């Protein structure tokens, strides 16, 4: 009986092995290496020494880590929680009232930015926010003279670019959620004389609250991990005005060769991801008992 049960689970083994070797091992190694002075080259590369919590102490005495952590919080809050989430909901709500043709064309436009390979989206965003780019051309038509966005307002540029790139996901989640809201409920409210915003605040939003929670978790995780968009648009600069945590971890590890410090930054990010991941799993478990 016991061996039989074991044999039944045998097909799961390849997946478990892959997950152990390529996901769990790097995570474990990250936590370990963050307590060493491991480096890309030199003596510390061949024989890394245990340095205790030095890397973590340096993190909080250094200026670059607190700044990167703050920029990451602003980037996630502005582009995911506010930008993608609110815009995605707004688009999905507008689609329920608009003509089908308009909804399908706009849906395609929004999804296009999301399906494109990230490097192509990043190049397009780079061109768009360039000093001579499309955004300043549009501002010029209205008589204004736009700044050099990537240089003067790098954070604004990457926030807008990430909103543009990622809104499709929230839109798709909310379109599916709104399609499940029973018509009768909305109609009954309409009969009771509820106004548009009242129906939204007291009926529609409470009905799709679990979708909102799941969506917020997922887009937060996705936005925490954004690297390519920022790397192509500003490379974290000028100075470190747009260096979020993934960019900082990359720079410390590969530009300055300090793997120990780079993995310490990475470990903080992994821990953050784990917290959000745990909340996400908990939310889903509550939804389907």
């Amino acid at each position, binding site marked *: 009986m016991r061996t039989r049960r074991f044999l039944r689970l045998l097909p799961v083994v390849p997946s478990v092995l892959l*997950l152990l070797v390529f996901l769990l091992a*790097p995570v474990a190694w*990250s936590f370990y290496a963050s307590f060493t002075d491991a480096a890309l080259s030199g003596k510390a590369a061949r024989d890394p020494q245990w340095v205790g919590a030095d890397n973590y102490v340096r993190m909080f005495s250094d200026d670059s880590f607190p700044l990167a952590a703050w920029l990451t919080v602003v980037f996630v809050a502005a582009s995911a929680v506010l930008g993608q989430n609110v815009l995605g909901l*707004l688009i999905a709500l507008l689609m329920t009232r608009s003509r089908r043709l308009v909804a399908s064309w706009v849906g395609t436009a929004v999804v*296009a930015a999301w399906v494109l390979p990230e490097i192509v989206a990043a190049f397009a965003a780079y061109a768009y926010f360039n000093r001579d780019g499309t955004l300043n*051309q549009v501002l010029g038509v209205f008589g204004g003279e736009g700044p050099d966005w990537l240089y003067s307002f790098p954070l604004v540029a990457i926030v807008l670019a990430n909103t543009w790139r990622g809104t499709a996901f929230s839109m798709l989640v909310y379109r599916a959620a709104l399609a499940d809201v029973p018509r009768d409920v909305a109609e009954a409210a309409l009969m009771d004389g509820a106004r548009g915003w009242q129906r939204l605040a007291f009926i529609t939003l409470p009905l799709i609250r679990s979708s909102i929670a799941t969506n917020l*978790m997922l887009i937060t995780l996705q936005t925490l*991990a954004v690297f390519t968009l920022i790397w192509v648009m500003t490379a974290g600069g000028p100075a470190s005005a747009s260096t979020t945590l993934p960019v900082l971890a990359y720079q410390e590890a590969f530009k300055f060769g300090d793997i120990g410090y780079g993995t310490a930054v990475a470990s903080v990010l992994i821990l953050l991801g784990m917290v959000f991941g745990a909340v996400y799993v908990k939310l889903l478990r509550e939804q389907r008992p």
Partner: protein
Amino acid sequence: MTTSRLRAQLGKESTTAGGSSRARAKLGADIALAVIGVCFVAPLLWLLLAAVDPQAGYQTKVPAAASTENFRAVMTPELLFQPLANSFLLSAGTAVVNVLAAVLAAYPLSRYQSRFNKPFMYTVLFGTSLPVTAIMVPVYGLFVQLQFLDSMAATIFFMATTTLPMAIWMTKNFMDSVPLELEEAAWVDGASTLAALRSVVLPLMRQGLGVVFIFVFIQAWGNFFVPFILLLSTGKQPAAVSIFSFFGQHGAIAYGQLAAFSILYSVPVLVLYALVSRGMGNSFALSGAMKG
């Protein structure tokens, strides 16, 4: 009964008092949506116009003399075809590994009740939430230790693992929708578990498997950071990395060629996405197999 009466009442309302205000609300939604749509298209417009403009800059403008010069310039073996072939190898390899591992894992999870199932599925789900960019520094360290650096096969297995949690989750859901009764009928006819899986379950969920395959393929095709870190020699790099090193390091002066390259590189995933989003509805028709 009550609903239909309500609807009739609503209809009456809209023909009398609310008629024009409803139409106005609809027009308002159309206009608001169209404005949003234009904002989303604007950054892509440059890509399309610059690709056919040999004198392209960062400005969005209709080319003075449109030509296919940019496309012809980038369509060389070392600039386009080799990187695209590498992209295809990486993405197809990743997708094959994913589908194989996911089908194997999903079968016992879907067919046998066990205490182990739920915790496993939730651990897998938790795995989907790890920020992949965060583990690239440790993965690089691991690849150095194991001497996997610059290995196409190792990169494929790593990329497959990053999408595997999602693939297992999706495959299990698709497999759950294949009715157990059909499989049991095959068993009664003397088929082994493996034969039943191959001849009954997999054919019935082939659309679902197609969705998983394409989903993973699109992710791998667009991935820049992983091959950027793990593949060092230019002969192995996929299009995402070669485009970055070519145009990033050569001072990005050939804007038109950059746009042309971007379009050629993006077309496959756009086509695949259109395929999946259209087929998505059909794969759920599967649950009707029992009624049919």
